[in-house]
């Protein structure tokens, strides 16, 4: 059975962090499980935590009047769910729903922000990694927006 530190160390977003830094991060983390269909968080709610998916899948959804819930993106093993805990006003922008039984590591956002404020090297290393992950997701979203499979009149 893996410890929280080992679980965290194995995630791409935390790759390369020093053992002491992993230990600090693990101090803000607990294991959690969600059933299929269960919400991890709801749009507008306080963004107090974020999640590292260990197994399963999480759909980010937005409720559109008259259209129901629209799935924006699905996140899986090794991926981070939730950035809103990083910046004020610390409110979720989307719903996050487990689409199957899902195991996660849940991080206390305020706890980790406090450790980053106290240890700027930890904060810098974490922000570098989160920024890289966010850029990858932003680029994927831009490709998604292009609607590359849409109609183009040809032959």
């Amino acid at each position, binding site marked *: 059975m893996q410890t929280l530190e080992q679980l965290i160390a194995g995630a*791409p977003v935390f790759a390369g962090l020093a053992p002491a830094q992993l230990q600090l991060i693990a101090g803000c983390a607990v294991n959690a499980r969600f059933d299929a269909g269960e919400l991890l968080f709801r749009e507008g709610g306080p963004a107090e935590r974020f999640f590292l998916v260990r197994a399963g899948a999480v759909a980010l959804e937005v409720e559109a009047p008259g259209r*129901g819930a*629209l*799935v924006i993106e*699905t996140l*899986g093993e*090794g991926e981070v769910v939730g950035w809103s805990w990083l910046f004020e006003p610390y409110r979720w922008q989307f719903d996050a729903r487990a689409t199957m039984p899902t195991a996660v590591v849940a991080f206390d956002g305020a706890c980790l922000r406090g450790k980053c404020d106290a240890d700027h090297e930890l904060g810098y290393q974490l922000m570098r990694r989160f920024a890289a992950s966010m850029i990858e997701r932003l680029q994927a979203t831009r490709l998604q927006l292009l609607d590359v*499979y849409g*109609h183009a009149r040809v*032959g």
Partner: protein
Amino acid sequence: MAMHASVEAGTDTPGPMVPAPFTLVAKRQDTSDTWTLQLRADTGSPLAFAPGQFTMLSAFGTGEVPISISGDAGADGPLVHTVRAVGLATEAICRADVGEVLSVRGPFGRAWPVAEIDGADVLVIAGGIGLAPLRPAILALLARRERYGRLLLLYGGRSPDQLLYTGELEAWANRGLEVALTVDSAGPEWLGHVGVVPRLIARAHFDAAGAVALVCGPEVMMRFTVAALARSGVGEERIYASMERNMQCGIGHCGHCQLGPTLVCRDGPVYRWSELAPWLAIREL
């Protein structure tokens, strides 16, 4: 060029520029604008082809279009094309009824290197109707399943109802193909992945050191896919892509499908990405 299989164009026909009549014997609607057609040669034997090749297909009087063959190269059945109605010629082809005669020239072009990648993990990566040119490659890989490592299909579409060959995916999975699907948008009833195809690559489990990728889809999607493959350790010399340009003659004479120093109808449509990359960087091409 030695990495590619080839089949001589039009060996059963008077010549590669002479259309052969093929009767539409079956037709299935796959999505709102896409149909799969089965065609039987009115004269001669069934068309021999290699996975990845295309024909010039036409409903008489509406012009020819290059359409990849999507049938099983290892079977003597009818010629199979999956066609998306996106213009006058393809709309006329898709409107044809069973019993009507269409014209076919070909097959043309270089094929997927399925016989030359024994031992490798193979990623088949498709976007939208790009799965159609890859279907013969999938069938060929599965026919020789024991010769490869992991076989993965990473396939993305606009929405769940726009995915092709959904009725076959389970059978392919049962034969040893690991299938991962994704769509650009979906409602909550879709329990699969939502996001773009390149995002599936980082999640896939394969041996990057020797892996080979076969890629087909919109060119923008292929560029992002190649970048994601590179991040996973798959080099451009092990990535093959099927390109689309304005193919007309099919035999490298007319020059309409020029891409850098190559002609897509003759030197493609399947290329190594390392051959293509210098020319794709030139926007005017």
